[in-house]
């Protein structure tokens, strides 16, 4: 069978001491920059790109890929432990992961993240190996109208991110969308909402927003009642998952993996949606949705798996067609070109050892990561026994340095202050920050695809309904709103009846 021969070739390529070493170095570095807020995989890969000049092409790409998916593992750690998400996917993990940590269940949360990610990594690597080229081709059927409808669906489904008022969640999404508009308009170059600040031309930095509305706002909330109660529960019950936990995470992990694998293939930014979509799906299909937002383990298992699966399959368009799904993949293409390989459909045929080597290295890397991360859980959890009055200055310090080091721009640090206060005030009034972050990430994409679709259709909005995939996605979006609103309406009506009885 071809597949077996190909995988054998891949293993042959990876299982050399050099390649194994650099695979490990990549994963380790990735975990590190993932744990530290700010720097992130894009900056790290850009920084390390010149060093890989001297490597064999396959070694260079194995290491760079390792940094990318390693960072997906690391990112969840900070989100769970100290509510400091470094990228949009970990913002979802923070919702329930951080609550679990506060209840002394940081160990199971971290273990769930690692195990879910490993399962997702394994399955999606297999997907890559079996069906990368046809999948990439199928994904090309997604044009601007489809992406627009997909994002609308994602936004409306994400009302589930909030466990409070739907109306306020919608409001937070729209604020996020508006904040995403800040910066130069990509179609005309007009600077928008920049108030003359040159630093805002390229938009508000995601890390500043995330650190502000999640990390800093949370610290300010905790300072409110520091005299009355201790913030973190120090008693850590157990590090490992109970039998009950295992039972609860199986289905979310599988569902998350499937969802993430599918979304990750879409080159127009589908993987951004994967963790948000998985969270919504889990909350909808759970028999106890009220637990979400207060430390439901499913809320960690699903999104983490979806995120890792999506990260893995986002390699598909790049490896098979030479088109980048996001900035990290664009850098990988740069790495290919610098190594003298022209990325494109020919890579599979002309460089089979490279292609299969990278794929197999992803599975090997995932194995290394899970072996690296599981023992680390003990260390991370011990960090939480540090008294909060010592921990929170450390969070502030990491947040400041991490944010500043992204582009050595003081403006990004000032932005933390603004979003810290905005987040604090809004959370105090019962609004939740996760939908805002989702809107912020998806806003520019939403506008870009809307405007492009309208150009392609020459101004005819019917294009969204005439194209079958787009129409189906919009129908799902309408259904998502109905599902979210109807129970609330019914509940209110019941309450009204009760009162009037």
């Amino acid at each position: 069978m071809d597949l077996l021969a190909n995988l054998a070739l891949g293993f042959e390529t990876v299982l050399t001491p050099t390649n194994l070493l650099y695979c490990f170095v990549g994963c380790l570095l990735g975990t590190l920059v993932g744990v530290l807020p700010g720097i992130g995989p894009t900056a790290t890969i850009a920084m390390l790109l010149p060093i890989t000049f001297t490597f064999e092409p396959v070694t260079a790409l194995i290491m760079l890929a390792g940094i990318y998916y390693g960072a997906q593992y690391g990112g969840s750690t900070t989100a769970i432990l100290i509510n400091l998400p470094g990228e949009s996917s970990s913002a979802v993990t923070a919702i329930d992961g951080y609550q679990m940590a506060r209840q002394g269940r940081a160990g199971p949360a971290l273990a769930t993240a690692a195990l879910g990610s490993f399962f997702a990594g394994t399955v999606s690597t297999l997907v890559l190996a079996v069906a990368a080229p046809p999948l990439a081709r199928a994904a090309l059927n997604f044009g601007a109208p489809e992406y627009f409808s997909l994002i609308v669906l994602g936004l409306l489904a994400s009302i589930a991110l909030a466990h409070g008022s739907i109306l306020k969640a919608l409001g937070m999404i729209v604020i996020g969308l508006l904040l995403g508009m800040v910066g130069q308009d990509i179609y005309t170059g007009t600077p928008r909402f920049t108030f003359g600040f040159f630093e805002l031309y390229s938009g508000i930095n995601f890390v500043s927003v995330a650190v502000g509305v999640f990390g800093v706002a949370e610290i300010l909330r905790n300072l409110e009642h520091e005299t009355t109660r201790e913030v973190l529960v120090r008693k850590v019950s157990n590090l490992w998952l109970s039998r009950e936990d295992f039972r609860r995470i199986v289905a979310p992990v599988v569902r998350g993996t499937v969802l993430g694998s599918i979304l990750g293939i879409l080159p127009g930014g589908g993987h951004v949606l994967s963790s948000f979509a998985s969270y919504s799906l889990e909350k909808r299909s759970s028999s106890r949705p009220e637990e979400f937002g207060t430390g439901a383990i499913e809320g960690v298992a699903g999104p983490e798996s979806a995120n890792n699966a999506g990260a893995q399959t986002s390699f598909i368009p790049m490896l098979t067609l030479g088109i980048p799904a996001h900035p990290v993949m664009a850098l990988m293409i740069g790495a290919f070109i610098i190594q003298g390989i022209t990325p494109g459909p020919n890579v599979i045929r002309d460089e089979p050892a490279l292609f299969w080597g990278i794929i197999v290295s992803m599975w090997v890397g995932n194995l290394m990561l899970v072996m690296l991360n599981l023992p680390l859980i003990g260390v991370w959890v011990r960090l939480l026994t540090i008294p909060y009055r010592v921990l929170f200055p450390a969070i502030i310090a990491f947040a400041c340095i991490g944010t500043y080091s992204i582009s050595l721009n003081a403006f990004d640090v000032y932005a933390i202050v603004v979003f810290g206060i905005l987040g604090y005030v809004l959370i105090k009034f019962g609004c939740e920050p996760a939908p805002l972050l989702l809107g912020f990430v998806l806003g520019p994409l939403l506008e870009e695809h809307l405007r492009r679709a309208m150009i392609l259709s020459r101004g005819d909005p019917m294009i969204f309904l005439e194209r079958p995939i787009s129409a189906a996605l919009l129908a799902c979006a309408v259904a998502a709103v109905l599902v979210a609103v109807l129970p609330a309406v019914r509940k209110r009506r019941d309450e009204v009846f009760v009162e009037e009885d």
Partner: protein
Amino acid sequence: MPFRKTGATLLATLLATGALAQDYPTGPVTIVVPFAAGGPTDTVTRLIAEPMSAALGQQIVVQNVAGAGGTLAATQVANAQPDGYTILMHHIGMSTAPALYDDLAYDPTESFETIGLVTIVPMTMIARRDFEPDTFEELVDYVTANPDSVTYANAGIGAASHLCGLLFMDAIGVDVLTVPYQGTGPAMTDLLGGQVDFMCDQTTNTTGQIKGGEVKAYAVTTPERLESLPDLPTTAEAGLPDFQVGVWHGLYAPAGTPEEVVATLSAALQTALEDENVVTRFAELGTAPVPLDQATPEAHARYLQEQIDLWGEVIASAGAGD
């Protein structure tokens, strides 16, 4: 007392600046690239950064500041310290920006010191695989016959693909609906997916797709055929001799950068352009380093002025400068 102290400090600063220019470079040099990482300009920069770094004896950091057809990065470098530690790699967009943007925050000739030209990358006219025309002549006829239904993709205002499209439409006298993207990657994605009909982009982006048979290639916009794509006719062969465009790249320092520093950078650039690896890699991308006498501040400044005049006319006649 305070006055004397200030005077001393001032003197020390002056001395330090003098010493700086002599010893340059004493720290890492940042090359700002006005487009996203992984794109053609980024690749060209990263390829020459390596040997330039060796020649300068300092690390070179490549920083991507994408946005607004490259004017964002250019504005940033124009306002940077003129000490040679922040320089700009820019392409043809440097010469078209004055015509495309009214409120440009810099002047391409006044705000920068030219360091030298780097390479002139040829462009190719390509289309989705199932697009009807098979040859460049047929493409011209088809576009002329169906101006209301064809769509042309470009990588954003001021991108090479945008300029090439303008020149093409100018040459055949037809206006086509243009769909802007954020960079070549997304534009190519939609071209492969058949969402748009055709585009014109640098060989650095298109060679892999052309060789893989993913797109239909019509012509190359250089006077001669390319070694890397020998079967592709030139636009002149295909009957449009006026439609010639190359994406030239050059290095810039902020205005006021000391002459010695510019000379050091220019020398390092020339060393890099002779580097064997650079020559081979450039050839694989379908381009070549400029002759060394072009990689000088003077030749670069001359070329820049010519290009500004040329594009000023094309863009004005296309009515795209809004």
